[in-house]
């Protein structure tokens, strides 16, 4: 019951903030509302029993990516242009409504209760902390994700070097 009320409050704030990100003329305000949106997503993770992910969401999205976006806006802002819509406004609306209708149709018509018997996964009971179990799920010898974890570190290193090379002053 508490989870349900929290879900509706968080979902309303989240959708409102996301709509404002798309519709506002001022890019800077849009970025601040995007950070609010990230915070409400962290709340949604808490209602889904994902405490570690909620902390990661606040640290990485609301912290790091939010600050990065605000820096980029400060460096590239063109005040008189603002944040206008392009030529594709109507067709973009049509495409996104079609995608939305398709996803909702699939979600409503699928019987999710039939999915059972997942043996290759780490489980914890609802209501317990997930942090140590996520460590098991990532690094376990048989059902872990050790190789993707190492590849993720290479992706981050490549992104780091790539970002530095792209914005380096070539004089």
């Amino acid at each position, binding site marked *: 019951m508490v*989870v349900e009320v929290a879900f509706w409050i968080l979902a309303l704030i989240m959708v409102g903030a996301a709509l404002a990100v*798309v519709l506002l003329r001022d890019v800077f305000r849009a970025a601040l509302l995007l950070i609010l949106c990230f915070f409400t997503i962290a709340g949604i993770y808490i209602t889904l029993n994902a405490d570690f992910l909620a902390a990661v969401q606040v640290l*990485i999205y609301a912290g790091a990516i939010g600050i990065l976006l605000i820096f980029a806006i400060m460096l590239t802002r063109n005040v008189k242009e603002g944040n206008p*819509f392009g030529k594709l406004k109507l067709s973009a609306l049509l495409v*996104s409504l079609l995608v*939305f209708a398709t996803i909702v149709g699939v979600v409503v018509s699928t019987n999710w209760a039939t999915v059972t018997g997942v043996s290759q996964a780490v489980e914890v*009971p609802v209501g317990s902390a997930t942090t140590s179990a996520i460590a098991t799920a990532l690094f376990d010898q048989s059902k872990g994700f050790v190789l993707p974890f190492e590849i993720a570190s290479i992706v981050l290193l490549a992104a780091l070097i790539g970002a530095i090379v792209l914005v380096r002053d070539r004089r």
Partner: protein
Amino acid sequence: MHFGLEHYLILSAVMFSIGLYGALAKRNAVAILMCIEIMLNAVNIAMVAFSRYLVPNSVLLTGQVFAIFIITVAAAEAAVGLAIIIAIYRSRQSVDVEQADSMKG
């Protein structure tokens, strides 16, 4: 309808569609990048909802691990994307994607 997986999946669909609309309709490159972040977060909500509700009374952590990988890739994508935007801004003093069309045939 009983409260559960469907609510989270439809919330995820709403967020994904809002992000898709913004990514297609906006002209400011930074705004497009913000809308892509909204889309990635929508997918994360779906992942975590599956990890919570696929098996009743138990949390399957594979979905949360996938969400962690998505967050990692999203961080890398944001860093490289913003670097590209700043490089474009340096060369043509604008982040309007409709002016950055020199590769158009």
